[in-house]
């Protein structure tokens, strides 16, 4: 069964839109860090945020009270459909599945909801916030916007969950009743997450992320979404997906990654999109890459875009697909030049590149990999056929700016499914 990328959407701290973000990465740009603080703590953390201006004007009634994670996901998902020129109608709403990859979910509203309980008591808890704390809230918003009536799944995991979602999509697409599967990875940042990763010694106080450094100085969290529309034909094919497995200790990750690379690297590999982020992940990936695919160029986008956890796997696939299509790869920023990998240290042309491996080692025990190859459909075909704006496709209305806080005039409701 053939599975291919028919369209992609991208929301990152470097902006919105695959082509513009890609161009900025090729130019060697990186996201600007901002700081995040919390009222009950003195510590301040550096993060890579999606600029508020990036989604200005993007709105929908269903998103009025939604958290940032849902808005990122909706924007990326709609861009992926637009890129593929796919307009969903009631006739084909059953023939598309939606799979979300999430790690921490709507943590901002979760914290606000629980803060009310802790500070004021259960009676103060807002019935508006609670539904947005549920892991599948972003998926349900996008399903409603698109009118999807078939399968909708939310997968939860660590940085490898995006690749797990692709594996699941591959399983769903084996059913010929489906024509498309839209896979979306999304994440939002909160101070709590930064503090948690810091206590786990995975976070760096301030940029840069230094990939493959021997010191493992840590990562910087980021937010956004990536969306990939999978079809049976497209400009890049998913040749093989490896579901990986979990590791009990960080030191066991290397062995599992080697196994994944052995499976995926049985053909000539031109490029590896690594998940190196300045943590133990880098060392876990380094030796297997050196050993199994020593001649492949290696790229990680995390120094430029940050560690977006649940969205990270989708971002890596977008990077791999873009590299295969554009036949070049951006520079790896802040890298250790002495590492024995074919790191792309400057913007590098890859005229004959055909295949890329996307390798993912999560921070919470999960791993996965997949292999991309240039497809039969000419690059640009899908974009050329797209005549619709996302807003036109689903009845979105342009409003000035985004609401960053939920509208709290909505009363209590007993109309609950449970």
């Amino acid at each position, binding site marked *: 069964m053939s599975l291919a990328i028919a369209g992609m959407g991208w929301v990152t701290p470097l902006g919105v839109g695959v082509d513009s973000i890609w161009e900025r990465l090729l130019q060697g740009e990186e996201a600007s860090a901002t700081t995040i603080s*919390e009222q*009950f*703590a003195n510590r301040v953390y550096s993060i890579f945020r999606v600029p508020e201006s990036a989604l200005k004007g993007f709105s929908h009634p269903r998103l009025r009270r939604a958290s940032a994670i849902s808005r990122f996901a909706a924007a990326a998902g709609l861009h992926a459909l637009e890129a593929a020129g796919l307009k969903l109608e009631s006739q084909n709403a059953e023939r598309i599945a*939606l799979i979300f990859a*999430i790690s921490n979910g709507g943590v901002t509203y979760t914290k606000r*909801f*629980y803060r009310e*309980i*802790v500070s004021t008591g*259960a*009676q103060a*808890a807002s019935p508006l916030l*609670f*539904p947005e*704390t*549920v*892991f*599948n*809230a972003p*998926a*349900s*918003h996008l*399903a*409603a916007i698109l009118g*999807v*009536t*078939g*399968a*909708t*799944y*939310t*997968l*939860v*995991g*660590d940085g490898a969950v995006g690749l*797990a979602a692709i*594996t699941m999509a591959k*399983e*769903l697409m*084996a*059913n010929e009743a489906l024509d498309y599967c839209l896979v979306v990875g999304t994440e939002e940042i909160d101070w*709590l997450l930064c*503090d*948690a990763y810091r*206590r*786990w010694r995975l976070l760096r106080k301030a940029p840069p992320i230094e990939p493959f450094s021997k010191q493992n100085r840590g990562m910087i969290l980021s937010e956004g979404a990536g969306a990939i529309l999978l079809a049976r034909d497209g400009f890049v094919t998913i040749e093989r997906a490896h*579901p*990986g*497995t*979990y590791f009990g200790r960080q030191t066991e990750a290397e062995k599992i990654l080697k196994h994944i690379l052995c499976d995926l690297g049985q053909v000539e590999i031109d490029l590896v999109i690594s998940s190196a982020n300045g943590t133990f992940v880098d060392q876990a990936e380094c030796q297997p890459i050196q050993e199994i695919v020593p001649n492949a160029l290696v790229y990680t986008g995390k120094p430029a875009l940050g560690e977006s956890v649940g969205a990270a796997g989708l971002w890596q696939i977008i990077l791999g697909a873009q590299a295969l299509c554009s036949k070049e790869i951006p520079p790896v920023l802040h890298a250790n030049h002495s590492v024995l990998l074919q790191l792309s240290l400057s913007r590098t042309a890859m005229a004959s590149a055909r295949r890329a491996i996307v390798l993912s080692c999560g921070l*919470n*025990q*999960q791993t996965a990999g997949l292999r991309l190859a240039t497809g039969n459909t000419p690059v640009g075909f899908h974009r050329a056929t797209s005549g619709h704006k996302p807003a036109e496709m689903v009845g979105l209305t342009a409003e000035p700016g985004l609401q960053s806080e939920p509208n709290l005039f909505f009363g*209590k*409701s*007993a*109309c*609950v*499914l*449970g």
Partner: protein
Amino acid sequence: MAQADRRERTNDPVRVAVTAAGVVSPLGFGLAETLESLRSARDCVTPVMRFSVTQCRCKTAGQVSDSRLLAGHSQIPRSGRLHRASHMMIQALQQLVIQQPEFEPELTVVGTTSGGMSYGERYYRSLNGAGDLRHAPTWIANYPAQKPVIDAQTAFGISAPCHVIANACASGTNAIGHAFECVRSGRYKRVLAGGYDALAEMVFVGFDSLQASTPEKCRPFDRYRSGMVLGEGAAVLALENLDLARERGTPVLAEIIGYGISTDNFHITQPEPSGVGARQAIERALESAHISAADVDYINAHGTATTFNDAAEGKAISALFDGVPVSSTKSMIGHPLGAAGAIEAVVCLLALQHQFLPANINFTTPDTDVDLNIVANEARSAVVSVALSNSFGFGGTNASMLMRKFPPSSGLPRTIDA
């Protein structure tokens, strides 16, 4: 290997057997205790002592005993640090492994809604000045939703990749349904599937804030129903290619024959009032099983006892079925959220194996708007060949699964004693 080979050659869908099951719920630990509690229609809902509920309308839940839960895990390294959900998963998987020591899944699919939420709560409270942060790394490490699954697999040497589905209250049925499809398609021979959720203050208060939970008894489908009570637990099922299981002489407990999923997009917490989403899921399950509604002998309803869920589900059931016995076992154990579908799959399995209809307790007055044949207050013996299990969740996710007695019965009267 004759039958399996023939199916492979003819591309017939693979039949899917349940060859082992483990369960931890307020009904008891293991199949025997669960069966006894179901037969005696035991009300397992008790006052909540785990956290303060003084400001909540509802003050009860279906709870799993801590003393039994934590017993017997001393051989597991650092078991004292694990989340209660991990202990539930370990207990459930232990029962399964005892039944089927040779079961080696190629994939694990588990549903949950809240993961390790209570550890997130402790972390937040401690940060907020109400506790000691020395244990924060433990709480953080055990917070991710995949952790209980990995803990359970590690305890029994299972290394399968795990997909954690978080489709709100439909998660458990979605997990088993997806696992069923993976085996049925022939892509996997053995998949471990299930669901878990442990009671957490934030979730408890969340449902209370929505006025979804009741200060009274949980009375699904009763005219005077006033809401749900929460529950907790875990259940796992071993799903295998039926032909392969029989060829190696493994006892088959039941057969999963169909699965349906739909998304109704009506509201993030409300079902579509006409029940169209629920109806679509049931119809798709029947279609997937190649059976008609007349072939179904028992329906384990989602039946949360909220006004709107039971009305919508009741409409869907009465539109498709003619007098089929219906019960919601949530009346006995509360709503265990992500574990609900998995525990209810075990309930259906026991009903098929032991030929009885589990009760819908606390039922006093039929709802004239919902014309259903409720198995009121007492379990009763019956011929049960096919059982349907429904699960519906926030975000408009609907899932239905069909299970058949194995070996299938033929030509017997449908009711032994009414």
